């Protein structure tokens, strides 16, 4: 029974489930580091998921779909950027508007283009990059089976996400751009005084977060599910925000925190095989990631400090 649950597949699924969360969480990190709160990750992810699917349905090319998802995420993000940076709207409220807008636009276009609500047709998906043969018995082959199963069984965006986490960490902490980004979120007035363009810097950060959230949506539809369903993001954008906080506003931290949430998700799916043996209703497993998010926030947040100027619109002059 334990063998049914603890297997290479469980950990591979954790990596897979963590990917959209991590992409959105890293986007949230970069956005908040620049001083803009991004509640709209959920909506940007959903928009990316839909337009990614739509492009694949139109062209048949998964990679074009990925590009479409990123562009759609960036487009949604530009709305958030314009509202919260130029118009100095309340960032949380603007984000809520975008989440609702994403729900409405994707649902509306779904009926307009495909003639029905619900779920789209199946699309061409991105396949795992590697496929190695599983060797026979013995200790070494067993280790190989685990490593192969956990790390080498994935689709491209899973690996791209790992690369993005490392690259973003380096960019935020070891480049001039990163130094300026952090300055924008801690003390925009000081950054402005030394000649950093606050509005432009924040725009770039918000657009990057939109692109990453869009990519997260592409991962959901073009790699994991193979079709789009209305509201399929199901709160992942909010869990990603929690992962960003748990990861203390660092890209690699966000990735690792997302792994925890991804593991919870993978575990709840795996645990459902227990249903025949122990009669636990599936709803309790489905609750698990959301409960974990609250527990994690409750446990960690006191010691984590948000960027000082996060959520505060900047008025020049």
């Amino acid at each position, binding site marked *: 029974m334990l063998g049914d649950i603890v297997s290479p597949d469980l950990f591979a699924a954790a990596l897979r489930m963590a990917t959209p969360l991590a992409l959105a969480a890293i986007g949230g990190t970069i956005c908040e580091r620049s001083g803009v709160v991004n509640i709209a990750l959920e909506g940007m992810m959903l928009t990316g998921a839909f337009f990614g699917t739509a492009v694949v349905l139109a062209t048949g090319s998964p990679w074009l779909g990925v590009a479409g998802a990123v562009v759609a995420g960036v487009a949604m993000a530009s709305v958030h950027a314009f509202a919260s940076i130029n118009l100095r709207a309340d960032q949380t409220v603007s984000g809520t508007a975008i989440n609702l807008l994403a729900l409405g*636009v994707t649902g509306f276009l779904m009926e307009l283009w495909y003639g029905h609500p619900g779920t789209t047709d199946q699309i061409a998906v991105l396949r795992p990059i590697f496929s190695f043969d599983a060797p026979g018995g013995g200790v070494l082959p067993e280790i190989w089976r685990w490593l192969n199963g956990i790390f080498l069984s994935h689709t491209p965006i899973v690996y791209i996400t790992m690369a993005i986490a490392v690259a973003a960490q380096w960019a935020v902490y070891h480049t001039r751009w990163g130094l300026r980004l952090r300055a924008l979120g801690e003390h925009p007035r000081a950054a402005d005084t030394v000649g950093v363009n606050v509005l432009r810097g924040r725009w770039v950060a918000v657009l990057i977060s939109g692109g990453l959230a869009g990519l997260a949506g592409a991962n959901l539809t073009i790699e994991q599910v193979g079709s789009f369903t209305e509201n399929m993001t199901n*709160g992942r954008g909010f*869990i990603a925000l929690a992962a960003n906080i748990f990861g203390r506003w660092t890209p690699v931290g966000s990735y690792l925190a997302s792994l925890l949430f991804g593991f919870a998700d993978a575990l709840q799916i795996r645990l459902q095989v227990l249903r025949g043996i122990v009669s636990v209703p599936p709803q309790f497993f489905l*609750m698990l990631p959301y409960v974990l998010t609250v527990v994690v926030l*409750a446990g960690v947040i006191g010691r984590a400090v948000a960027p000082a100027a996060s959520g505060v619109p900047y008025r020049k002059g």
Partner: protein
Amino acid sequence: MSEPRSAVPVQRRWMAVLQKVGTPIISAALAIVAGSLIMWASGYDPALAFASLFQGSLGSPKAIGDTVLKSVPLILTGLAVAYGFRAGLFNIGAEGQLFMGALAATALGLTLTGVPWIVTVPLMLVAAMAAGASWAFVPAVLKARIGAHEVITTMMFTYIGRYLVSWLVNGPMKAPGGIPQTHELAINAQLPKIAALFPDSMKQALPILNLGRAHVGIVVALTAAVVIWLILKYTTLGYENRAVGYNRWASETAGISVQWTTVKALCISGSLAGLAGATEVMGVHYRLFDQFSSGFGFTGIAVALLAKNHPLGVIPAAFLFGALAAGAGTMQFQADVPQKIISIIQALVIFFVAAEEIVLWFVRRRQKEAMSHAG
């Protein structure tokens, strides 16, 4: 908050009122214009769409009844979100508290059989408020004690609550039969329809009383709006709520417990959302099932923002969104426009209210024009 009246010239008071009411009205108008453009660009006929929308929401007593029906939960969730906002808290999870309120009301209503309605109905409403408040309590404490963002926690509690209800209506509370739903509430646990309160002779004389499905929950909702307005305006509780919303540090210095005020604010907010769940179950569906709420908790955010968080402003704002929701079906049927356009219009309303600068730009230009005409 309220300035001494005599000190402010009448004209300036009117200008202030106009500015308060003007932005929401212009925002709503802009959103509807933008919605029309989207319909037009998508190949639909906006004129036909709005005509059928009007017909389905205000075109007949029955349609008006539908608008009232949809407005009831929206007034309550709008109040919930607005009350939180007035303390600087964003209760994005009103939907979850609404589910818990509906659950408590249903559970109690199914238990209290054979008890007169004068006892059951108030008890169910109170139970729903308690359940809604309890669902907001943990996020409230987490916010007050360690600053965990209420947007994330109340959202997570919404998912947890929905799965909890889903389990109950699929399992322990499921009525026999293929559909996952509870037993029907007995008549003593229902909110009666408004039309049923009047004798037929009166309805014949006054056809406007044939309000279709509208139920007396509207009285509950309107009462709640007035009570919240009174609380905010005249009580210490409301004063502290507003003070913390304006400036938590100044409030702390003035001796107000910000933590305790935060907890109270979110719990009161949750209780209002819970009440919305109760009126839906007791007045509309008479039973609980998975999909009984069409996102009233989330639309409540739009209602609160459009009302600029004023408890009485929530009423017209809720009627606007109630009318949109009530007419959406007719619109889809007659003009073929997907109902989702309503979500888009809602989102645009929030957007325009939030990005007030766009709207203020219009207002200022009008003022400038008026001034140049006058001078």
